[in-house]
């Protein structure tokens, strides 16, 4: 164990007794205003919300019994994200509220008898402390020294506070640790991003191609629903995955590709389409730029060439290419979601975008539709101060095509170096367990060590809360308002989240915390509303609705402003790229010094006795945040290690036994993982679900269950285009038990 100034502290080190006292004596002061405007005598049985268990944000209804106890959450029939059906995580979202391991009261880091620990604080004390420290540190380094790492609904509130304070360094791991490469690839090709929910028109597609994307295991509700509709309508599914995933089991073609060679397959597919004239000639002629360059570029990439790299039969490569062409334009080569794999990810997703362009699926029914977002005016506030330093200066000259802030870029810039003066001194971390979200934990810990203040705002104790200076307990989505959900979809729509009940324990909603901090920082001008209800009602009235109406209906849809869900036949379209065309040959890439056409680069292979570490999702869990949810833990309480029977035989592994894992850098997993011997994984790889192996003992159900893949991801392949952290280049081997379950290290 390394020694640092900042010791990891188990939350509530001063004892549960003091916590219980604090929780029962400190009533939530804003509780009365929470329900202001609603008839207090009205005993409603359901109230609207949108889910916060994952980013899909399905809108639903929270049902309460006569005693006011939350019983169940079900989907809102009007909602385009869920069509009235919540996924297991949403249905089990009620467990977030009931979880007795929740963060219960503000905590401040302190030293007692030379030991670092947390002490219980009141809200005034905690917020005063943070505001005073922020002012003092900013007086030395400027307000730009504050950064916010966020995931989910709290980000809007804390982001607003940060911008008013004078920093725009707001970042979400969902970009550089997840979907960033696909957004940049589609932006440089089509001049627009894929969005969330994805603009994939799966319900009407005739051919869905999934590359390492395990729909059904990643339970992105609307997409999974539409995939099921497509199966009903006889669509062909083609799955490319070294693992026989759930959806591989539902596919007409499963291509058990050698890991890390996807680019070769994509180039071969492009080659086959062009060589055989299996592409939409009119579409390519009318809308695209650089076809001749592409044609010349892919000439050598025959299926026979790809066979030697991918191990996929050339005949199957041709057959699947034909299948895509036959379905076109109702074909989707899916851009995926978690796509930070090998460091050339933007280029791989460029190849995906090019395939879609050749088949004419962008802007076509059954391909990619044009989503529209409801326009909702923001409550008027003064312009934010212009920071002296923008977040991109943290990684100046690098990741030039990133269209969002790069989280790992800010993290690295926090570590003081002689050649960089833009160090961050304060982190706000909200709704993201950075120890599990960012790979290369050593760098994250170095950065945290260099901070003068870290404030963590969350509902649960996690690994990152242990390193905080101040912990603020956030109430769950069932106990609060948030900003209106207005994600783009086939129809513009909004959804309301309102509290179904008062915050449990001494937790508070993010909007209240951000505003209270803002006021303490002298930023009243940017928080002119008395409470969030007033702000939401003002916004809703600008678009012909009201808070009262939204409380009744939960979701409201608006007509599209134009009939442009798909391109009209022969329509002239100007794309938001340098050439105004769909760029098969990317001028953005060329201008920034990257390959304008995707190329195949071989990636490192596992050394003998090691296996590539592949990780993924389970449908009943989201990242590491649900691992302690009582309802969801009941469905899955640990991850398992998928091992091919040939490998198992070689190592004498049996299903059910526990092993530890060691990676190529001799990093050994903290806990053990249960082996699952299965034919469903290639012999050169092992697989586990991400989000387990928590080492915070305050997580009574999650602690020590399974292995945390992130701690084994010590080698990161950075995507030079947009800063993405490629995480699939790590190799592990087995460390054996000596005394039953726990392995000796």
């Amino acid at each position, binding site marked *: 164990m390394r020694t640092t100034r900042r010791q990891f502290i188990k939350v509530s080190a001063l004892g549960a007794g003091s916590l219980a006292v604090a929780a029962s004596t400190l009533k939530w002061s804003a509780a009365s205003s929470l329900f202001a405007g609603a008839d207090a005598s009205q005993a409603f049985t359901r109230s609207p919300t949108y889910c916060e268990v994952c980013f899909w944000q399905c809108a639903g209804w929270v049902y309460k019994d006569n005693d006011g106890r939350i019983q169940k*959450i079900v989907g809102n029939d009007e909602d385009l994200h869920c069509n009235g059906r919540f996924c*297991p995580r949403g249905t089990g979202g009620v467990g977030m509220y009931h979880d007795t391991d929740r963060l219960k009261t503000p905590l401040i880091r302190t030293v007692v008898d030379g030991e670092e620990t947390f002490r219980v604080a009141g809200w005034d004390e905690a917020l005063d402390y943070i505001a005073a420290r922020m002012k003092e540190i900013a007086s030395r380094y400027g307000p730009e020294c504050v950064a916010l790492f966020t995931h989910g609904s709290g980000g809007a509130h804390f982001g607003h506070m940060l911008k008013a304070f004078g920093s725009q360094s707001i970042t979400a791991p969902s970009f550089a640790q997840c979907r960033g490469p696909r957004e940049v690839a589609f932006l440089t090709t089509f001049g627009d991003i894929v969005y969330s929910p994805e603009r994939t028109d799966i319900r009407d597609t005739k051919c869905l191609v999934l590359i390492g994307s395990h729909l059904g295991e990643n339970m992105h509700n609307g997409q999974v629903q539409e995939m099921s509709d497509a199966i009903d309508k006889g669509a062909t599914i083609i799955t490319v995955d070294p693992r026989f995933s759930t959806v591989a089991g539902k596919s007409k073609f499963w291509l058990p590709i050698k890991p890390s060679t996807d680019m070769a397959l994509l180039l071969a597919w492009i080659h086959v389409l062009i060589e055989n004239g299996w592409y939409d000639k009119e579409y390519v002629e009318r809308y695209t730029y650089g076809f001749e360059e592409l044609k010349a570029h892919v000439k050598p990439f025959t299926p026979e060439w790809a066979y030697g790299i991918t191990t996929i039969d050339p005949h199957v490569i041709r057959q699947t290419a034909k299948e895509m062409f036959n379905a076109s334009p109702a074909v989707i080569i899916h851009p995926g979601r978690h796509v930070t794999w090998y460091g050339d990810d933007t280029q791989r997703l460029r190849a995906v975008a090019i395939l879609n362009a050749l088949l004419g699926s962008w802007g076509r029914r059954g391909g990619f539709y044009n989503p529209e977002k409801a326009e909702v005016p923001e409550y008027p506030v003064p312009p934010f101060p212009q920071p002296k330093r923008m977040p991109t200066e943290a990684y100046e000259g690098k990741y030039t095509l990133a269209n969002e802030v790069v989280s790992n870029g800010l993290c690295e810039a926090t570590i003081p170096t002689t050649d960089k003066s833009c160090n961050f001194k304060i982190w706000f971390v909200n709704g993201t367990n950075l120890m599990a979200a960012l790979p290369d934990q050593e760098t994250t810990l170095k950065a945290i060590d260099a901070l003068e203040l870290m404030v963590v705002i969350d509902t649960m104790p996690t690994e990152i809360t242990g390193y905080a200076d101040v912990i603020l307990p956030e109430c769950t989505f069932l106990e609060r308002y948030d900003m209106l959900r207005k994600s783009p979809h086939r129809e513009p729509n909004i959804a309301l989240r309102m509290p179904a009940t008062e915050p449990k324990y001494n937790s508070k909603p993010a909007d209240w915390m951000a505003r209270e901090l803002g006021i303490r920082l002298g930023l009243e001008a940017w928080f002119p509303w008395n409470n969030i209800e007033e702000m939401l009602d003002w916004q809703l009235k600008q678009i012909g609705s009201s808070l009262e109406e939204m409380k009744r209906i939960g979701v409201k849809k608006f007509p599209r402003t134009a009939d442009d869900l798909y391109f009209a036949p022969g329509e002239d379209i100007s794309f938001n790229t340098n050439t105004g065309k769909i760029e098969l040959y990317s001028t953005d890439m060329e201008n920034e010094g990257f390959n304008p056409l995707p190329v195949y680069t071989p990636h490192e292979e596992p050394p003998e006795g090691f296996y590539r570490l592949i990780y993924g999702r389970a*449908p009943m869990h989201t990242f590491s945040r649900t691992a302690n949810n009582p309802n*969801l833990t009941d469905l899955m309480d640990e991850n398992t290690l998928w091992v091919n029977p040939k490998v198992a035989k070689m190592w004498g592994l049996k299903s059910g036994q526990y092993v530890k894992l060691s990676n190529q850098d001799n990093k050994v997993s903290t806990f053990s993982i249960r082996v699952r011997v299965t034919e469903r994984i290639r012999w050169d790889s092992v697989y586990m679900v991400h989000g387990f192996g928590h080492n915070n003992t305050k997580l009574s159900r999650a602690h020590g269950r399974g292995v945390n893949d992130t701690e084994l991801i010590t080698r990161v392949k950075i995507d030079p285009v947009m800063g993405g952290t490629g995480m699939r280049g790590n190799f592990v081997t087995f460390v054996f038990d000596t005394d039953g379950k726990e392995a000796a290290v």
Partner: protein
Amino acid sequence: MRYAMAVDTKKCVGCSDCVVACQTENNVPIGYCRDWIVEVTDGTYPQLELEIRSERCNHCDNSPCVRCCPTGASHYSKGGTVLVTPDECIGCGACIASCPYDARFPHPDGHVDKCTFCLHNRVEKGLKPACVSVCPTKCMYFGDLDDPNSEVSVVLKKRKWKTLIPEAGTRPQHYFLI
């Protein structure tokens, strides 16, 4: 009237939403479940097949659990649904041992518990069972087999199906589309 359920194994992704929806709808204590997911993998890499099933009580026409119940707590109800009256159940467990599908469990309150097809709390109110109405893939069908136009009748006419352990002679009313 003959209530039955069909699960489309071609669409089910095994997400367990049916399990958690049943738990919250029917107050099934955490740690117990009335429905569950079974995954069966066949073959050798890369020639593989996968079947995923959402399973529960088969509400058999010829139920060994009803036959062996010493108190009459296990009984046939509306539409052939097999139910347990908790107040009459002595928790002897004979039904648990007799069920070839392992569909019953001892509830911590002392009686035996199992799937009810949500008969009283949903179906009699015109709603679908909780598992059917929550399923994101819409892979579950429920209705009256005596009504040729019910969605379960229609889908069983249209598709190939199987039941589990038909050789047990229980005449299960839970079908799996294959």
